[in-house]
């Protein structure tokens, strides 16, 4: 599922890079999750997903590592969209309550606690089944970074950095700060 298939989905800043290949959210990565993100009125960010057998662990069960990836992806993009700064994941803890099943509909909802002082940004995520029951929870910390300061680690040229700078500074419709009420 791509952002273009969901009219209410928000474009992530990385989408200004024509060939970005993020495993979690790029529509250009055929082996990725292709998540798209929908802002909610309460400041949360949501991604609906259904994973097929390519992501299987035990027969019929989604691989647990992918659950962590989905949560990380939604939390990380909420930070980018709400705080307008890219951030690396520093740590993540995921608790699995029930197995997620192959070819079933789920959604991941990420929230940010109220902004704190300087330091890593904490975030929360939950994976819910079609009935709204919580199947997994995740908490993580993210360290914001300056695109220009990590140029040697990212394969971006000057034009792409300029595009990203502009995309990060451009207003989006996300609720202010994406903070949890």
């Amino acid at each position, binding site marked *: 599922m791509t952002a273009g298939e969901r009219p209410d989905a928000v474009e992530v800043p990385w989408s200004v890079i024509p060939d970005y290949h993020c495993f979690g959210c790029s529509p250009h990565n055929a082996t990725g999750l292709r998540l798209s993100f929908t802002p909610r009125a309460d400041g949360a960010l949501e991604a609906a997903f259904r994973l097929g057998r390519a992501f299987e662990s035990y027969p019929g069960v989604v691989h647990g590592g992918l659950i962590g990836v989905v949560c990380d992806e939604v939390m990380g993009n909420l930070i980018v969209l709400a705080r307008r700064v890219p951030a690396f994941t520093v740590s993540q*803890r995921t*608790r699995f*309550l*029930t197995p997620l099943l192959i070819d079933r509909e789920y959604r991941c909802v990420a929230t940010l*606690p109220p902004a704190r002082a300087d330091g890593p940004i904490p975030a*929360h995520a*939950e994976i819910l089944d079609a009935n709204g*029951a*919580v199947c997994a*929870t995740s*908490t993580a910390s993210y360290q914001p970074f300056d695109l220009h300061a990590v140029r040697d680690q990212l394969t971006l040229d000057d034009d792409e950095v300029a595009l990203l700078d502009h995309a990060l500074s451009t207003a989006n419709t996300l609720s202010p700060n994406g903070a949890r009420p």
Partner: protein
Amino acid sequence: MTTTSADTILRTVTEIAITETGLTAAELTPDADLRAMAGVDSVRVLRMIARIERTFDIELDDADVFGMSTLAEVTAVVERSVAEAAA
């Protein structure tokens, strides 16, 4: 940050337990063994813990989560974690 009292924590924890288990406040006494109560399985307890962690903005250790059986024990662990977060 203000200190959250044990009574306040117990009250909030009990409200969450009522929501997540469907049991009544009369059944969910502080010393009742949650895992021995009809209709309360490990998944319900984990959902309750997830809600408690979000409500208090804390992260409980797995050893604590799986070692707790009563709301009084949950309250003690939450109280300690809230105090550590505030320190």
